[in-house]
């Protein structure tokens, strides 16, 4: 009997020390190449930016999106001179004004598409550098069944829009705003009950980019360190976890509250690589800033580069925290928005 108790005790100890189940998805841990990069500010004093969040450049026009502006969401400039053209996307509740702006993309050298999640609308704006005007030329109302759309990409055939309710990963939506197909699911390794899915979706809120040349649709999580690659040409899907793993959160009353770390900030898919801005600071570390009455860093100072299959290629460490990026592989330069410097744009050499 006593021997049995000893064996039982040893068994309990061994069980309590056993590790977690095998992971479903591959992990990356390190990058084969690492570089430190110095940034340079580009002087832009024609406008005051509160939170320059996204930047994109097409031929001779650059557009910066200010997430917390007091007037307009978008500011256009000539490129590379950075001479102001016009600001547009007035913040407001009027019929042609924007309640919010999540992100935007160029659809031609002088037009952009912009997503207003609070209006559930995607609008097209035409920019005229010569007349210094911007016109709202097209408006698409997104179907209410999408509830709330936080990221999109317009392809030739449809919009790719991230899912808000946690039942799918993204939706294919027609150019008239009607859902066509629901695709994928959140690649969590934890089994959550159905009623947790909206909070799960909030925690897995992601940034996306698509390159029509290679068919790569990449998705990177705002919390945690998880990113996915959908190859829409070969119909394959890769999920890769970084060292910080999947987004962590607490669910209360259907809401997801971030715990763990702040993850990716922006993503860009080029013809050969996937570039991501990574933060990596934990919310506990951020709370220490607040305890000292200070603001926590805005953005990340890591630029991770992956190949089109998700293998880590290079890690850049910048001397500033950045938010949105625009990478030009032809000139081997990066342009980024920065909310912590006197100027909204910094550049760096890759």
């Amino acid at each position, binding site marked *: 009997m*006593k021997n049995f*108790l*000893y064996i039982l*005790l040893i068994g*309990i*100890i061994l069980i*309590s*020390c056993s590790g977690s189940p095998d992971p479903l998805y591959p992990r990356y841990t390190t990058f084969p190449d690492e570089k430190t990069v110095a940034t340079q500010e580009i002087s832009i004093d024609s406008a005051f930016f*509160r*939170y320059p*969040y996204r930047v994109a450049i097409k031929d001779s026009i650059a557009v910066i999106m200010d*997430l*917390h502006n007091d007037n307009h969401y978008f500011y256009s400039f000539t490129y590379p001179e950075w001479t102001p053209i016009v600001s547009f996307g007035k913040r407001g509740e009027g019929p042609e004004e924007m*309640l*919010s702006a999540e992100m935007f993309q160029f659809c031609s050298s002088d037009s952009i598409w912009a997503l207003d*999640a*609070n209006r559930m609308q995607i609008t097209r704006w035409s920019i005229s550098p010569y007349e210094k005007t911007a016109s709202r030329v097209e408006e698409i109302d997104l179907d209410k069944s999408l509830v709330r759309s*936080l990221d999109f990409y317009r392809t030739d055939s449809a919009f790719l829009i991230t899912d808000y309710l946690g039942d799918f990963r993204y939706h294919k939506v027609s150019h008239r705003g009607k859902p066509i197909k629901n695709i994928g699911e959140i690649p969590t390794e934890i089994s959550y009950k159905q009623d947790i899915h909206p909070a799960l979706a*909030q925690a897995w*809120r992601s940034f996306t980019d698509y390159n029509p040349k290679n068919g790569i649709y990449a998705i990177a999580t*705002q919390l945690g360190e998880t990113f996915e690659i959908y190859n829409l040409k070969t119909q394959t899907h890769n999920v890769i976890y970084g060292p910080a793993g999947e987004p962590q959160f*607490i669910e*209360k*009353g259907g*809401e997801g*509250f*971030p*715990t763990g770390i702040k993850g990716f*900030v922006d993503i860009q898919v080029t013809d050969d690589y996937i570039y991501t801005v990574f933060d990596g600071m934990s*919310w506990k570390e*951020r*709370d220490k800033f*607040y*305890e000292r*009455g200070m*603001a*926590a860093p*805005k953005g990340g100072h890591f630029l991770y580069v992956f190949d089109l299959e998700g293998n880590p290629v290079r890690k850049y460490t910048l001397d500033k925290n950045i*938010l949105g990026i625009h990478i030009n592989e032809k000139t081997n330069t990066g342009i980024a928005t920065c909310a912590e410097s006197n100027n909204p744009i910094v550049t760096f050499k890759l």
Partner: protein
Amino acid sequence: MKRKIIQSGIALLCLLGGLYFYSTPSDKNILNDLAFENIEALASAEDDSNENYLCYGWGDIECHGRKVERKYSGFR
């Protein structure tokens, strides 16, 4: 001798249990009073403090149609 083995085993079990619960992350956002005062001081005029969540600051975390720096739960 046998009693000592049993006592040692129980002590070891207690130690392992204590290490397990210590290493398990708490599901509470624990902030000291100073941090809470700073949070309230930084909260915008539109903070949703009547709900069971508190969102404040300028950031890119989604919070009921706003983009905030921080989102907390359970303060009210």
